[in-house]
């Protein structure tokens, strides 16, 4: 048995309503650690679900992200607040386009923080389906940059 994103969202909702601050589950080798308001690494699916500490009506983090075009997509979120660049240099072709095949370590863009360039990797193998962040735009921490359909 595996946990779907929906299952995780449901578990999070239950935790949210409980008086507990953290929850650990292990099912058939799948480990899930949830913590209220925590930033501890959690299973990837969790990052797609509503943020834990939320006491407002559930909203995906970040709030402005448009809903995914199909279920089961992996999200590549920005590790930093900064300026997002799709290409290594102005005028050069972008790192990825919709339809690009990516590996875990494929660079999908650059985040500039005060002239310091930080590359962002896909973190998952598959195909780029959506590119949400505009070139040279300010992106927030945890803002979804691209969505990838996991694949072989």
């Amino acid at each position, binding site marked *: 048995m595996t946990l779907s994103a929906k299952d995780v969202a449901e578990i999070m909702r239950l935790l949210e309503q409980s008086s507990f*601050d953290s929850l650990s589950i292990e099912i058939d080798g799948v480990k899930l650690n949830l913590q*209220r*308001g*925590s*930033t501890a690494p959690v299973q990837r699916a969790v990052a797609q679900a509503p*943020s834990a*500490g*939320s*006491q*407002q009506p559930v909203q995906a*983090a*970040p709030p402005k992200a448009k809903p995914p075009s199909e279920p089961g997509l992996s999200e590549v979120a920005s590790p*930093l*607040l*900064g*300026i997002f660049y799709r290409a290594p240099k102005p005028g050069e072709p972008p790192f990825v386009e919709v339809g690009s095949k990516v590996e875990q370590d494929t660079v999908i863009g650059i985040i*500039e*923080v*005060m002239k*310091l360039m930080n590359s962002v990797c896909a973190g998952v193998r598959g195909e780029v389906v959506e590119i949400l962040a505009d070139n040279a735009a*300010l992106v*927030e*921490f*945890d*803002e979804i940059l691209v969505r990838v359909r996991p694949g072989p």
Partner: protein
Amino acid sequence: MAIRRILIANRGEIALRVIRTCRTLAIETVLAASKADLDSLPARLADRTLCIGPARPSDSYLRQDTIVQAALGVKADAIHPGYGFLSERAVLAGLCEQEGVIFIGPTAAQIEAVGDKLRARAEAEAAGVPTAPGGAVDNVREAMVLGRKIGPPLLIKAVGGGGGRGMKRVDRLEDIPSAMELAEAEAGAAFGDARVYLERLVERGRHVEVQVLGDGNGRVVHLGERDCSVQRRYQKLIEETPAPGLSADFRARLHSAAVQFAARLSYRSAGTVEFLVDLERDSFYFLEMNARIQVEHPVTEAVTGTDLVAEQIAIADGCGLRLKQDEIGPKGCAIECRINAEDPARDFQPSPGTVRTAVWPSGEGVRVDTHIVSGSRIQPYYDSLMGKIIVHATDRPAALKRMRGALAATRIEGVATNLAFLSGVFTDPEFETGGVDTSYLPRFLDRRRLAQEVRAHG
């Protein structure tokens, strides 16, 4: 006004406090918030909120590059740093200067000058402001020589910062070597600067500070003093103005010393010059200058009818000092107390969690600065300040009465707080008399503990 949009690089009640003033000035606010604070009251009330990083302050609120990048990214004209976090980091002020973003506060050079406690001491001496007998000590031999000259009890203090860290009391000269080693290790760990200095320890001292505003060109006004002697481990709990029981002459000398010090630095923005009032010698010594807006600023606002954040913004905007010294006439008495999410029964340990109910007082002469409402979460990553209750009345007895009423009307459920403890202080005869020294709160705690034990065994 050139400042139309301000990035607020802080959280909690002070972020909300800045938002409130910006609203009255029709200035747009952008809040730089960590992921854990995206649902906070300030995040909901700011015109825009940017998520700058994870909950941990070192990954969000303490990242100066991210803060300046955020300000540039949203085209903010200025950054308000609040207190704590990056408010007194010369690097942030310098980065702002470099990038053309207005830093609402002093210059980087001024922050550096007061951040180094030895340098601040030297500036005070040069400005003719009294300092406690003492000075720099580079090694144990020097410390022994100076210690013998001043005589115990002594205090070894860190050059790089305050807050009680890197500070050691020495009662016998032979304890200097071990105490110095400890102080240096602590200072090095806390401030990345192991230098220490030696000062006479004032046994019966009161912490009295003076609020100043400077235009950056040598003009400085003061807005009276605040007595912050009710402290626990260097954490202020209750602040009031005027300082009880000081003569008009003594008070005037304190005020002019603060103005002299700030004027010597051509200080810009709001700042506070802290003094230790030595009750036995009827004198005062310069302690340090805080180059920021302070937690306890509302008591000064209450008696002077000013908005210090608005003045900070005006000065940053190049409007200079709008207040004239002879027009600042403090009226009445104001007292503030800090409501913290901490448990007095467990040695004031922080008590994070969800606030089930928060009912704050209101009414004439009562002000509450808070970001906590029913349902708010107290994050374990940040300080435990939930809010401040400020009362203002014609005199101290009336203000005390008002505070007791305000505390009785406050209800916080879901997390442990120091509410009942504070109520105890406000009905304590010694505090009611006024003019307590900094050893008051520990003594009050001992008495309280004793009374509880007697009750338990009696």
